[in-house]
């Protein structure tokens, strides 16, 4: 009698035990490199401040506690505000980017016109500059427009630098939507805007969510540099600048700083986690027969 295999994986996905071991070892090594700062940061947040400067340095916290997660709110009373500011800036940037990029990407994907390649190339060139290179001209621009020390000073440049890559990303996605859907809608008497709203937007939803996630992360991570340069008002500070408040005159309260970092990024992590689940749902919807 022939031996029956209970393994349901495809042949191409089957590995020997030592291959599996090597794969997981590689994964662990890679993950450790990426996560080491987070691990160390989390362990620091659990340690009492005195233990941080003890010699020899102990990696694992002795009598560790979550005390820093409670005291951090008293040390910097405006901390919650900084987190909210961060969110406000990132979400507003994302909304602005989406409002501009979704119709623009559709136009770039569907319509052919003179100079389109030049404009797209221009977008690519702009996205090669980081905001830091343009800080001084931007500062003068913000000053002459009277936008310094406002939320707009952090939102507008942030959004502007995120638009090019978002257009490229979404254009590629929208080009995959068959032109025949437009033609079919046109045959049925639908206008360009009707087709865009009722046909293209719903189908492009997974792509739009990807762009929203990328833009949100981008806005969240790049707000530091704009906040540092264009804003000096404490109440408008976003999280990365707000963390500086834990740098005292005499000493840095490391454990509370680390705790604050984790508390600060937690809402963003939760948000992205849920958006990703939503993204997978969007991708499995029935598509057109190619």
């Amino acid at each position, binding site marked *: 009698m022939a031996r029956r295999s209970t393994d349901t994986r495809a042949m191409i996905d089957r590995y020997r035990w030592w291959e599996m071991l090597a794969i997981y070892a590689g994964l662990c090594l890679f993950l450790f490199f990426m996560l080491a700062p987070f691990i160390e940061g989390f362990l620091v947040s659990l340690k009492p401040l005195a233990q941080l400067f003890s010699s020899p340095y102990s990696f694992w916290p002795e009598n560790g506690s979550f005390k820093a997660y409670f005291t951090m709110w008293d040390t910097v009373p405006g901390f919650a505000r900084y987190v909210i500011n961060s969110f406000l800036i990132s979400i507003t940037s994302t909304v602005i980017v989406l409002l501009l990029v979704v119709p623009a990407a559709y136009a770039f994907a569907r319509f052919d016109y003179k100079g389109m390649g030049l404009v797209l190339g221009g977008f690519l060139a702009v996205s090669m500059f980081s905001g830091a290179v343009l800080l001084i001209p931007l500062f003068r621009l913000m000053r002459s427009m009277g936008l310094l020390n406002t939320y707009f000073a952090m939102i507008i440049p942030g959004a502007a630098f995120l638009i090019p890559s978002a257009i490229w990303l979404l254009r590629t996605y929208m080009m995959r939507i*068959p032109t*025949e*859907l437009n*033609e*079919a*809608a*046109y*045959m*049925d*008497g*639908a206008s360009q805007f*009707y087709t865009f709203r*009722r*046909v293209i937007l*719903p*189908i492009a*939803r997974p792509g739009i969510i990807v762009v929203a996630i990328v833009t949100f992360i981008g806005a969240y991570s790049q707000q530091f540099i704009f906040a540092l340069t264009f804003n000096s008002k404490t109440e408008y500070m976003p999280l990365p600048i707000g963390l500086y408040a834990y740098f005292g005159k005499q000493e840095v309260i490391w454990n509370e700083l680390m705790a604050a970092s984790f508390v600060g990024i937690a809402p963003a992590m939760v948000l992205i986690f849920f958006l990703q689940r939503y993204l997978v749902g969007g991708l499995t*919807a*029935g*598509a*057109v*027969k*190619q």
Partner: protein
Amino acid sequence: MGQLSLKTVIKTFGDIQVVKGVSLDVTEGEFVVFVGPSGCGKSTLLRMIAGLEHTSAGDIVIDGKRVNDLPPVKRGIAMVFQSYALYPHMSVYENIAFPLRVERAPEEVIRQKVNAAAAILHLETRLQQKPGQLSGGQRQRVAIGRAIVREPEIFLFDEPLSNLDAALRSDMRIELTRLHKQLGATMIYVTHDQVEAMTMADRIVVLNAGYIAQVGAPLELYHKPQNTFVAGFIGNPRMNFLPVTCTGVSDAGVEVDWQGSRRVIPVEPRAGIEGATLHLGIRPEHVTLERGDFALRLTPSVVEQLGQQTIGYAALPGREENFCFVLPGTRVIEDDKPLDVGFAAAECHLFDAEGQALPRRVDLAAMSVPPAL
């Protein structure tokens, strides 16, 4: 209503002329099939009628009105696409209702029309499903449903069955013919599949390189092709062509000489072709194992057994193309062994050096059901 006229319609893309002056009249309720090899302009012609492509020159007239500059919806036409072009995020119901929603029809009217279309297409139980959950044939029916609800005078089909597997294709062919009878609308259908053309069409338009090669009823194209292109395109496997010399013209037909055998082919005589080289056409299915008016010995290099018929291919000396023959039923034929075959002069087609046919004397009326008076 549903009468369509094309008047020397031309389409150019840049410097390339794709449709080179096509004139055609389609009467109301007719099922017309555009057929031709890829790149012959059939799809472009359909898209111009649809209003998806601009017409470079010439007029498109529907019911006496020039529609060149009208958008599709004002032409009273609906189109079914090869890829179905269903909206993947909408239910079957919403897909079919889409044209009605565009024209802001009342909810009651929409429900009634969608249900009526679903009943015609046997989609009643599928209305709440998404296109992704349907089979290819069902998706195609949804696409047709979306065309039906607009109650167009002319339906356009762009290779609607080419994404389906063979069994489903023949089912859908029957279904489309039934639908045409039921709706009585004018239908224009593009395909490269001659079986679809032969079985469904009232009239077939054969296109070649941007021109109409011939327009006619399916059997007319089969029995009286006007040129070598149509003769070779209609019929599968394609017609064999043999070079012959004209030796005489009489009332009975044209006498030709092929490798020493002289026979009279019953075609309309034409003066002044004695001595000229002509092309004799014989369809593979008309070749028999008996010695007919013409006999030839050939050595089949490949023999295909289909059970229902036996197909052989043999090289003829001095000819590039294989000579093909189709014998009914299962025959024991060895490849690479000489075989004597023949064919009757009455089954032959004759073409002049330019490829134009000398019309055959075939009574087409005897082959079709007489039209009801």
